């Protein structure tokens, strides 16, 4: 079983760490994983993204062009990657940053208002974890506990005081999707 997932958004939105956390969790579960970031110019202002592959077997190419799931944190990412989702794949996006919703009908589409939740948690830095939580609810690529554990290694020591709020964010994200099931736009 192989999951090929793309995380995309603005430079500052923490999409890279989202992917990193997932990858790490996969590793903790003994799966084969790869994390391939985009690096360089498009990261400034424009979109940053990373491809995460979690697989039970060897991973040949860390580069793919079609994804089982795409997590889009802003409009440009949505515009660019909607078409890159495999048929019947999953497309989750931050509805607080994406004005024009996707048009494909062959996908599970989930808008998530992470902004609102973040404000509720009163911390705008954890939007990405809210999103990750939401994603994990729809695709059980890895178990939430592994992700919680992964956080410890992915978050630099000096940020460990933020472990809790991040865990909270993950949890809240997971629960969010229940609502999302009945689309809120």
């Amino acid at each position, binding site marked *: 079983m192989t999951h090929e997932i793309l995380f995309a958004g603005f*430079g*500052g*939105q923490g999409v890279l760490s989202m992917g990193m956390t997932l990858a790490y969790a996969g590793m903790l579960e003994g799966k084969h994983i790869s994390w391939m970031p985009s690096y*360089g*110019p498009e*990261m*400034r202002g424009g979109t*940053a993204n990373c491809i995460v592959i979690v697989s039970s077997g060897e991973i040949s190419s860390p580069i793919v062009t079609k994804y089982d799931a795409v997590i889009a944190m802003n409009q440009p990412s949505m515009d660019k990657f909607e078409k890159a989702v495999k048929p019947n794949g999953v497309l989750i996006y931050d509805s607080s940053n994406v004005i024009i919703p996707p048009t494909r009908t062959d996908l599970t589409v989930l808008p998530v208002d992470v902004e609102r939740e973040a*404000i509720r948690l009163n911390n*705008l830095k954890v939007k990405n974890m809210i999103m990750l939580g939401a994603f994990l609810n729809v695709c059980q690529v890895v178990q939430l506990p592994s992700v919680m554990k992964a956080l410890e290694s992915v978050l630099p020591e000096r940020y460990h005081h933020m472990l809790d709020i991040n865990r909270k964010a993950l949890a809240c994200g997971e629960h969010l999707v229940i609502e999302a099931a009945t689309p809120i736009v």
Partner: protein
Amino acid sequence: MASVHGSVEIQVETCKGCELCVEACPQDSLKLSKEINKLGYHYAVLIQDNCTGCTNCALVCPDAVITVYRESKGKTASASKRKEPVAVISNVKSNVKVVLDDVPKGKVSI
């Protein structure tokens, strides 16, 4: 109330919200907006009508997005020339603690 009357025009879409103009303004006429622009920055806006057109903000603005106007001595403002600041926000209070999430990391690196 300042003796000379002036005003500024700020291109909000190219402003990066560095706040240097706010710092440089002797009249405290500028502030960062609550809203973010397309680039995700909280842009500078004129919040009082006490601008003297001293050009300090324009001088320090690294992105040259500020144009400064001043009441020309002697003659009265010709309506044609007159420009209103593009954005004026009355209430700048906000219950959201906005954190300028790490200044865009990964710049072009060569």
